[in-house]
């Protein structure tokens, strides 16, 4: 009796079929790493709601897909068909990936300032693998994170950004990941590595967009090392196709006086999960994780964060705001850990959600674990409906109801989008939010 392979068996088969052709196939340490990762994944399988960290996000619909590994797509897109998100005066550097692999013909890395090196993961493994040894997978725990393990086993490409001491990337780096789903549902596993040496700084805008119809899996992993006094602004737009699964995990380590700022805007995909795990690893290390999401129909949007205050005098803030309509489901899990010697820590976390329909739902799980006594920590999670009193007030001034609703929703999300420090990114994200709300308002009229 034969049966369809289950999803874990499929991924193991992907590995067996591809391993000889994956980048860095001849490199001993990498082969061992991939092997360990695959074993780790195979032992645990796809995460299920039985695991605490996936309590509210089920991958059962993904498990039903007969996923195939994404092959390299050599053509079928033009650079002109991929508009830049930011205005021309800020254009500097752009890498374009199609189904997870760099497409040099679509990319425009521009002139990188001294001390800044940017390559694809495949080239880095081909040209200077010793640089990646001990750095790839230095932050994540393969045994505990099946999707990271899967990414590690199957990563076929991605990017490596290195900022030397005091180097500064003045213009934002756009990383555009385009999905081109085919006849069969594809899976790809892009990997990013950022090393920001002491005193360096950069702004990164990572976008994930879908072209065409059909389901696919983008299983994204990144590792970000921020050394002393370095500062990184990391903006991410998740705008995958309607049937897409986007699962991402970022591991970040921030050394003394370093700063990591993240803003994630979720507007697309059937299921989008973005997990960020930050270790504040030296006095004065600071981190801000913010996000906005707009869910409709049966979308599922999961933001999961882990803030590890490992050293004294570290600060973190988190603000996530979402608007859910239709039968959309939101998840916010925020864990803050303050280790015993992390005195003078300041950690704040807020999640606010607006539920626009009876069918929309949000699950929030804040977790504070504090083992030091001289700390300031707070969390708050609020979910509510549109303020009817405010809406009546607005309408009593002659503003039509639909416009009033739009105004309140835009204001609600505006509060967090306004916090984006990079002006061009802020304006671009404000535009995306406004367009999404206008589409929604248009849809309501139809």
């Amino acid at each position, binding site marked *: 009796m034969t049966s369809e392979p289950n999803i874990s068996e499929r991924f193991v088969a992907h590995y067996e079929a591809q391993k000889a052709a994956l980048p860095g196939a001849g490199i001993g340490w990498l082969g061992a790493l991939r092997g360990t990762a695959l074993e780790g994944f195979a032992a645990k399988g796809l995460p299920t709601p039985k695991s605490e960290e996936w309590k509210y996000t089920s991958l059962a619909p993904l498990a039903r897909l007969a996923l195939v590994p994404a092959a390299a797509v050599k053509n079928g897109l033009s650079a002109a068909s991929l508009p830049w998100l930011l205005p021309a005066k800020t254009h500097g550097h752009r890498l374009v990936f199609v189904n997870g692999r760099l497409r040099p013909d679509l990319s425009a890395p521009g002139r990188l300032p001294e001390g800044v090196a940017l390559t694809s993961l495949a080239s880095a493994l081909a040209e200077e693998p010793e640089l990646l040894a001990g750095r790839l997978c230095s932050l994540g725990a393969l045994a505990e994170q099946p999707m990271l393990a899967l990414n590690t086993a199957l990563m076929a490409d991605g990017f490596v950004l290195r900022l030397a001491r005091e180097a500064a990337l003045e213009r934002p780096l756009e990383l555009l990941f385009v999905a081109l789903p085919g006849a069969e549902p594809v899976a790809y596993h892009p990997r990013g590595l950022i090393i920001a040496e002491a005193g360096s700084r950069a702004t990164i805008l990572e976008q994930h967009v879908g072209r065409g119809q059909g389901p696919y899996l983008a299983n994204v992993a990144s590792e970000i090392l921020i050394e002393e006094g370095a500062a990184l602004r990391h903006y991410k737009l998740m705008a995958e196709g309607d049937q897409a699964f986007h699962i991402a995990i970022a591991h970040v380590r921030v050394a003394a006086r370093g700063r990591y700022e993240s803003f994630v805007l979720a507007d697309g995909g059937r299921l989008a999960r973005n997990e960020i795990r930050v270790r504040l690893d030296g006095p004065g290390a600071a981190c801000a994780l913010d996000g906005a999401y707009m869910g409709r129909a049966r979308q599922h949007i999961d933001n999961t964060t882990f803030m590890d205050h490992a050293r004294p005098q570290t600060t973190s803030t988190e603000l996530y705001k979402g608007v859910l309509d239709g039968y959309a489901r939101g998840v916010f899990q925020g864990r803050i850990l303050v280790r015993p010697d992390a005195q003078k820590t300041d950690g704040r976390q807020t999640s606010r959600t607006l539920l626009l329909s009876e069918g929309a739902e949000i699950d929030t799980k804040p977790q504070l674990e504090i083992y030091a006594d001289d700390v300031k920590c707070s969390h708050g999670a609020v979910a509510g409906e549109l303020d009817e009193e405010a809406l009546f*007030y607005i309408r*009593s001034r002659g503003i039509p109801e639909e416009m009033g609703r739009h105004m*309140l929703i835009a*204001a609600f999300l505006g*509060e967090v989008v306004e916090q984006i420090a990079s002006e061009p990114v802020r304006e671009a994200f404000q535009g995306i939010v406004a367009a999404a709300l206008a589409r929604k308002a248009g849809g309501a009229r139809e």
Partner: protein
Amino acid sequence: MLEIRNLRVTVDGKPILKGIDLDINAGELHAIMGPNGSGKSTLAYVLAGREGYEVTEGTVRYKGRDLLAMSTEERAGEGLFLAFQYPVEIPGVSSTNFLKTALNAVRKYRGESELDAMQFLKLVRQKTKALGITDEMLKRAVNVGFSGGEKKRNEVLQMAVLEPTLAVLDETDSGLDIDALRIVADGVNALRSPARAMLVITHYQRLLSHIVPDRVHVLAHGRIARSGGKELALELEAKGYAEFVEAA
């Protein structure tokens, strides 16, 4: 301008207004006074079209049309304005943007051209000065972090900008000190005109020494218990509402 006939309203099934009759003509300013819980604010909300107030009987005609059949925003477009007893805070929406959106919505409803940013600013500047409203206040989110007096002045500013034909002021004097009261009263008086009717709802007489009414009505237990000229307000000030509370 406004004709209320036998208006009966329930909230959560409980009768609040039990047969109100009231006529206000263009150019007139009427005051409604009454003890707490007499239904004053209910009347204001029903006129503005707030949900949760069920009209079980009676009619309200405004400029000859059935007011109760109109949506809240239509009523505003037709020139009804309610100054709220408790103006609502709207985080994230700047006062300027709110006022401009409201004005242009009302102008559009009235078939007038919308104002651009420059025209709007010019119009607002004319109105803010007398009310002591600063540019800084206009930049803030609507009513967020405003003091009680600022909120009430902001209501009068909105009224001045939207130029209603029927203004209903619900306890606009509550929470104001004497200086703020005078500023607000001056703002209201400046809007009095032969084409405009006003209904001022208040618990206390003191507002009516600044805004002198043509008629005063006492609302008690959901009915107009007595009507008279402006001297009725002084009489109430002297005697209180005891006779109306006990009469029921």
